C-alpha cells in the first residue's frame, strides 16, 4: 500500500515537473528506486512532490498548469450549482415533492413554471438541462487534458443547448430569470477556456513537435 502510494505521489511529482524539467523528473525517479531499497520511498516521493510544486510557479508552463487546474476546480462549483438547481426543480423540472419518479409516473406536484398546455415540453427540456450539466461537467476534464479540439466542440454544444433553452423559455413565456445561472455558467466557461487556449498557444508557440505542449 505504502509502495503504491509512493509510486502515485512520485508519478504526480514527475507530471508536475512537466517537459521543461523532464531530465529532473527522470533523475528523481532513478533516486526513487534507491529510496525504495532504503525503505523510505514515501518520504522521498512527498519531498519530490513538494519540490516540484515549489518549482512550478517559477516558470510560465508551470504557472499555466496551476492556473488551468484552478480554472477547472473553479468550474466545478458552477456545475454543482446547476445540479442543486435541477434537484430543486430548476427551471423546467416539475418534480415537486413527488420527485423525478413521481413526475415520470404522472403524479406529484407540478412546478408553477409550466402550465397544463406547455407541460408536454418538460421531458425534452429536462433532458436538455441534464445534457447541459453533463457538458459543463466534462469541460474541466478536457481543459486539464489540454484537448482543445474537444473543448471547442463541447463549448459549441453547451452554447447550442443554452441558446435552445433561451428560445424555449421565450416561446413558452417563462420567467427569464431562471436562465441567468446557465447563461452565466456558459459565459464563465467560454471566457476561461478561451483565455487558457490563447495562453497555451502563446506559451508553446515554439515547442517542438511531439512534446505534450505542442
Amino acid at each position, binding site marked *: 500500500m505504502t509502495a503504491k502510494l509512493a509510486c502515485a505521489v512520485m508519478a504526480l511529482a514527475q507530471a508536475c515537473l512537466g517537459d521543461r*524539467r523532464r*531530465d*529532473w523528473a*527522470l*533523475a*528523481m*525517479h*532513478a*533516486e526513487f*528506486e*534507491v*529510496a525504495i531499497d*532504503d525503505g523510505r520511498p514515501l*518520504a*522521498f516521493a*512527498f*519531498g*519530490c*512532490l*513538494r*519540490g*516540484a510544486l*515549489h*518549482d512550478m510557479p517559477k516558470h510560465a508552463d508551470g504557472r499555466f498548469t496551476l492556473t488551468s487546474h484552478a480554472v477547472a476546480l473553479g468550474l466545478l462549483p458552477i456545475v454543482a450549482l446547476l445540479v442543486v438547481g435541477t434537484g430543486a426543480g430548476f427551471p423546467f423540472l416539475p418534480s415537486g415533492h413527488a420527485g423525478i419518479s413521481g413526475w415520470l409516473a404522472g403524479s406529484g406536484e407540478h412546478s408553477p413554471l409550466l402550465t397544463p398546455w406547455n407541460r408536454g415540453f418538460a421531458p425534452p427540456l429536462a433532458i436538455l438541462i441534464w445534457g447541459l450539466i453533463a457538458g459543463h461537467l466534462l469541460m474541466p476534464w478536457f481543459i486539464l487534458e489540454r484537448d482543445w479540439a474537444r473543448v471547442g466542440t463541447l463549448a459549441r454544444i453547451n452554447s447550442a443547448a443554452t441558446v435552445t433553452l433561451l428560445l424555449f423559455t421565450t416561446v413558452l413565456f417563462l420567467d427569464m430569470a431562471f436562465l441567468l445561472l446557465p447563461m452565466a455558467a456558459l459565459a464563465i466557461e467560454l471566457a476561461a477556456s478561451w483565455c487558457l487556449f490563447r495562453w497555451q498557444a502563446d506559451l508553446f508557440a515554439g515547442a517542438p513537435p511531439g512534446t505534450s505542449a505542442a
Partner: protein
Amino acid sequence: MATNRRPSKQMIRLLDALSASPREWRHGYDIMKETGLLSGTLYPLLMRMTDQGLVEAEWREPAQPGRPPRHAYRLTAQGLALARETVGGRGLSGFKEVPV
C-alpha cells in the same frame, strides 16, 4: 548566471558536501543522506544551482543492471568559487586547490 544573494543554510550545506571532493560525481540520494537535506529541499536547490551554473549534472550508468541511469552532480568552477567564498566568509579554511 550566479546569484548575488547570500546562500541559504541549505545551500551552504550542499556547497560544503559537494566541495569536500569537488571532482567526484555524487548521486542525489547520497547527497541527501550526507547533508540531511530532504528531497523536497535538495532537488529545488540542485535545479536552481544548475540553472545558475553552480552545479553540473551528468547521466551515469547504473551500478546494478536493470536500473535506470542516475543523475550525478558536482560543482562547476563557479560553484567551487562560491563554496570557497562562503567558507572564507565563515572563517574556515579547509579547501584544497583542485582544478575543475
